[in-house]
């Protein structure tokens, strides 16, 4: 077992970077998530300065239409507006002159002046052109101007409803949420990098030949290696769980934290299994480092570790169903539901069972690889 620990000790410097990344990530995510997300959404409104000299049915309808999604100012200090235009601080100005409606009915574009000192002009221009098209369409149906404008205003008054899902039903604002989330990334990476070299060393063909010649039985030697691996894996897990308990104990109830701990234990089992397989299969320690990055980042991306599930394309979420980290993340999301410990307990355990099944399957692969090597 001491040899296992010595090999792990040699791998620790390269792993320390992962610890740093992990804690920087959760600190950053915790900081941003601490703000009230409902306040983070605000629909953009432009300030439109308007003057309607004509005051026709069409011009009034146009200003009403613009006011549906923007702030339309009709009473303002004209000198101030001149200053604002000069300073380039005006979103949009619309000036309707006499003969606007007449010009419109004649199919011309006269009677209206528009101005903007910001890049928003194209957007408001487009909105105004759309309004004209709607009115023309209504008029083409044989309606009078008043009726046509009323119809257009009625049809366009509906705005898209934007609702921010609040609190624990969506993305949690609790920093502890990110702690458990990023464990799905950090535990496989770290274990591959520290346990992979152990397996790689002990299953190197020439070393295996030499150890097989020893007086100590192969079984006893294997037990020593297994003991070392178990101790290291438990130490890594206990380190994270201990830190999590110290830093985030206020974010969770005891039951929630215990469930999170159980969940992380299953991902630990899977990570150990993957580490031993890769350690035996890959040709070098450098290859193991590469594999830890590919597997850690890849699995985390497809499982929604880095981005919330609802922001990911459907196909990514489907791929996540075939990854243990995907099931792990389901459980982490369950932890954000109020009273998850009681209401979703069975579902939580089933998910844990699925992750454990992944671990067993990978470990079975390890046994097959070792058996085949022995036969060769």
């Amino acid at each position, binding site marked *: 077992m001491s040899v296992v620990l010595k090999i792990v000790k040699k791998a620790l410097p390269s792993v320390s970077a992962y610890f740093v990344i992990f804690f920087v990530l959760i600190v950053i995510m915790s900081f941003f998530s601490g703000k009230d997300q409902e306040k983070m959404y605000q629909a953009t409104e432009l300030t439109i300065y308007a003057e309607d000299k004509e005051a026709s049915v069409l011009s009034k309808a146009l200003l009403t239409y613009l006011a549906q999604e923007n702030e339309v100012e009709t009473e303002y200090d004209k000198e101030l507006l001149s200053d604002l235009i000069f300073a380039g601080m005006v979103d949009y100005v619309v000036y309707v002159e006499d003969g606007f409606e007449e010009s419109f009915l004649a199919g011309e574009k006269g009677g209206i002046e528009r101005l903007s000192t910001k890049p928003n002009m194209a957007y408001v221009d487009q909105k105004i052109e759309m309004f004209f098209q709607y009115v023309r369409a209504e008029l083409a149906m044989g309606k009078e101007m008043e009726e046509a404008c009323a119809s257009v205003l009625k049809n366009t008054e509906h705005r898209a409803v934007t609702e921010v899902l609040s609190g624990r039903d969506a993305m949690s604002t609790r920093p502890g949420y990110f702690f458990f989330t990023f464990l799905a990334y950090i535990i496989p990476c770290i274990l591959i990098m520290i346990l992979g070299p152990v397996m790689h*060393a002990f299953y190197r063909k020439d070393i295996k030949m030499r150890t097989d010649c020893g007086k100590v039985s192969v079984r006893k030697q294997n037990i020593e290696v297994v003991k070392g691996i178990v101790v290291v894996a438990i130490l890594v897990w206990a380190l994270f769980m201990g830190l999590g308990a110290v830093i985030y104990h206020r974010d969770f109830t005891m039951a929630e934290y215990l469930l999170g701990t159980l969940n992380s234990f299953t991902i630990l089992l899977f990570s150990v299994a993957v580490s031993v397989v890769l350690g035996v299969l890959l040709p070098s320690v450098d290859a193991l480092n590469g594999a830890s990055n590919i597997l850690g980042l890849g699995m985390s991306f497809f499982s929604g570790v880095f981005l919330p599930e609802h922001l990911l394309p459907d196909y990514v979420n489907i791929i996540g169903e075939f990854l243990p980290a995907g099931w792990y993340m389901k459980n982490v999301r369950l932890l954000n539901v109020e009273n998850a410990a009681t209401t979703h307990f069975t579902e939580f355990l089933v998910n844990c069972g699925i992750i454990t099944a992944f671990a067993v399957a990978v470990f079975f692969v390890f046994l097959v690889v070792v058996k085949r090597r022995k036969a060769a």
Partner: protein
Amino acid sequence: MNTVVKIENLVKRYKELVAVDHMNLSIKKGEIFGLLGPNGSGKSTIINCLLSLTEYDKGEITVFGEKMRADNYSVKGRIGVVLQNVAVFDELTVYENIDYFCSLYIKDKEQRKTLVQEAIAFVGLEDFTKFYPKKLSGGLLRRLNIACGIAHKPELIIFDEPTVAIDPQSRNKILEGIMELNRQGATIIYTSHYMEEVEQLCSRIAIIDKGQLVATGTKDELKSMIQTGETIRVEVPELTSEALFGLQKLSHVISVEYNDGLAIIKCSGGRHNVLHVLEYLSNTGTSFGRVFAEQPTLNDVFLEVTGKELRDEVQ
């Protein structure tokens, strides 16, 4: 002398290939026994079978009077192995490596400490005990490899091509070390395709080709098995056909070849062969330059018994 290793009728197949073909060997206590043969002749396979690292199809192997099996740990404890490839942990220092491999045989820490120190001193790695293998040169790595195999003071030590790809100085150091281990009482099995090494080191030699035992005996016994007793090379600028014919007629001369001004005369075991050849050349008025006389080598033995050069096979 007691028999340490006895291999009877050993057969090992890899699918269609017969790697070891009805091999019989007997190695006595205190010998340095050489297994000589070209690459792929089956030397390492014999060693792997002997150590129960691989299963074999037929035959029986007895070591120290006990049947060798993978779980015969009492016998394994009396064997030391120095494999062809340097088999050490890159993550452990020189001391830690030797200590770990010694721990596979010796449980007692204090005893092991002494043995590790002795092994380090034996291979001359005292100044490198805290070095990691990657910091060692090829020669030092080979010495570490040997130290890992002998630290527990085994009675039988198997060296599988321990001098491949190292400099002559390290090679000599290793060969001297092996002879010292033998003097200290260890029985040695030494496999190599370097016939000079085997000839210099081994008290008995088995020549192996294509998995078969071609010949076995001391180097003198092996050389006496072949017709060639002495090879004389004479630089002769011009050699007439009459003179060539006359050389062939000399007593003890087996064959004469003449190419590019060099006459190669192979003689059987008679005495004064060089004198007779030179007398004949003088009498026939044939001028000659430098003269070389060589006793038969293991290459000659290999050539005569297999019909091919051992050197060629190696290359």
